[in-house]
């Protein structure tokens, strides 16, 4: 896979400069980690939208299931935290199996059906008290371990974990997008019949994208629970885990890979640092208004807007 010089410089800065310069400021680090958590979900959500052509309002289910699976496995089965996080992703994939029947639905119907499914998991987490702790939730969920003398549960350690997760997600997204599956998924967008008659199993490909997206979201949910160390149904399955990423992904441009991440950092920081001070409660209303404006003025999001100059030249060639 090709990686640009700018890309390498950004990765270097993210791994070395950010911890060195900001690592001691725990408020700033926690803002960054929170933004990256939103970014991870936004990336997973955008992958499903961009490659699978599906709009999901149910990603909070994957986030919550990933969190619960990982928390329970570490607390009740003694599974090491880092392994449990991956299993949290697997748990989210299993949860997404329940959503397969709705794959046949299109557009808003799919979005609504998946939203209903999401609610089912929240009820499950609330009622299955013996395992999930019910509405009281789980306290003292294990922290990240210390690895070779380095405390991963510190702000900087957690930051490095989520950073690494995001980089793996980006790499996986790029591999999928340029694979034959990725090309076939792109082909399906406006030409599903034409694509199916040459032998593409469109339902299967969409299901695979749902699995990948669910896995990523579940891992992020698992990361988050070991980062904050507690869990309750209302928090784990909160609608914010999907609305904020959607705003971020659309704001940044959901058809690009980096757009949702840039969008997440921008949206989250602007929301926390500016809007929250202006209107302490209900500040998310401003995000909604911005989103509407964005969809009207630049339906492709922020990234395409930034790149417009270069695109134009390219298209003319």
């Amino acid at each position, binding site marked *: 896979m090709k990686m640009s010089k700018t890309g390498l410089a950004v990765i270097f800065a993210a791994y070395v400069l950010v911890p060195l310069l900001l690592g001691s400021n725990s408020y700033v680090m926690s803002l960054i980690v929170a933004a990256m958590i939103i970014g991870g979900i936004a990336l997973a959500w955008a992958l499903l939208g961009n490659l699978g052509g599906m709009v999901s309002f149910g990603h909070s289910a994957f986030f919550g299931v990933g969190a619960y699976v990982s928390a329970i496995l570490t607390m009740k089965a003694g599974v090491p935290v880092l392994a449990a996080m991956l299993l949290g992703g697997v748990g989210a994939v299993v949860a997404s199996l329940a959503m397969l029947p709705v794959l046949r639905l299109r557009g808003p119907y799919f979005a609504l059906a998946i939203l209903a499914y999401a609610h089912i998991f929240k009820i499950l987490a609330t009622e299955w008290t013996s395992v999930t702790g019910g509405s009281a939730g789980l306290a003292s969920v294990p922290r990240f371990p210390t690895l070779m003398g380095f405390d991963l549960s510190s702000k900087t350690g957690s930051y490095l974990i989520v950073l690494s997760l995001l980089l793996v997600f980006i790499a996986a997204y790029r591999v999928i997008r340029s694979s*034959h599956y990725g*090309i076939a998924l*792109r*082909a399906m967008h*406006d030409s599903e019949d*034409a694509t*199916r*008659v*040459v*032998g593409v199993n469109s339902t299967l490909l969409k299901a695979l994208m749902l699995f990948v997206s669910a896995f990523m979201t579940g891992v992020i949910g698992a990361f988050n629970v070991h980062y904050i160390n507690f869990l309750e149904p209302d928090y784990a399955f909160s609608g914010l885990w999907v609305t904020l990423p959607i705003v971020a992904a659309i704001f940044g441009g959901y058809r690009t890979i980096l757009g949702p991440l840039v969008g997440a950092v921008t949206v989250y920081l602007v929301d926390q640092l500016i809007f929250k001070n202006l209107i302490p409660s209900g500040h998310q209303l401003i995000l909604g208004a911005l989103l509407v404006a964005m969809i009207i003025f630049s339906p492709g999001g922020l990234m395409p807007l930034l790149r417009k100059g270069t695109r134009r030249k390219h298209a003319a060639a």
Partner: protein
Amino acid sequence: MLRLEDLSVRFGGLTAVNTVSLSVGTHEVVGLVGPNGAGKTTLFNAVSGLVKPSSGRILFDSTDMLRTPLHRRARMGIGRTFQIPQPMHELTVRENLIVAQRFGTGAVDARKIDEVLEFTGLTDKAERHAATELALTELKALEVAKALATNPKLLMLDEVLAGLETNGKRRFMGMLKELHEKFAVGILIIEHDIETISNLCHRVAVLNFGELIADGTPDKVFRDPEVIKSYTGASDA
């Protein structure tokens, strides 16, 4: 190779295809003609799996197609073109063929794709964006190329010559004749032009209001009074 037994397709109260029995042998070229709205395209859609027959059977190499999912029919050897060209919109011409080949045959063979591009005259357009940068003749050629890339045994062509100017038509005709030999396919072709059909086909079947009203050699069929009547009724089309 392909056998339809009493095939019917109904849309609500409309019977678009009405108890049609028809077969296409390996390496045979069969014309499918009939006035507008006769049910020709619907018959193709039933064979390729885009519409569900209401009754009857579709057998391909003795396999029941009604139990075969749509996407597997390409692998079995059923290829088709669309009357209104349907390129895969977001892709280049070459990517269109890559998808067709990878999913229609299970393998990737860049040489074969170059060969198909060459044969259909699309080599120069290979890296062009399929939906926005092709002329009608090229879009029609891409329809054929996509189908060929899946390595079909049966090629169903839906009015691939319609709308082309005389020269383009002649070149396309030449290509179709050569294709039959070179790729060793059986062909089922929908076409309005009697001369084209007579020139190309071993056999011709005539649909009228969804019913098969004639099936035989072009010579015989085009002299059948009933066929002539259905045809002159729609000759302004």
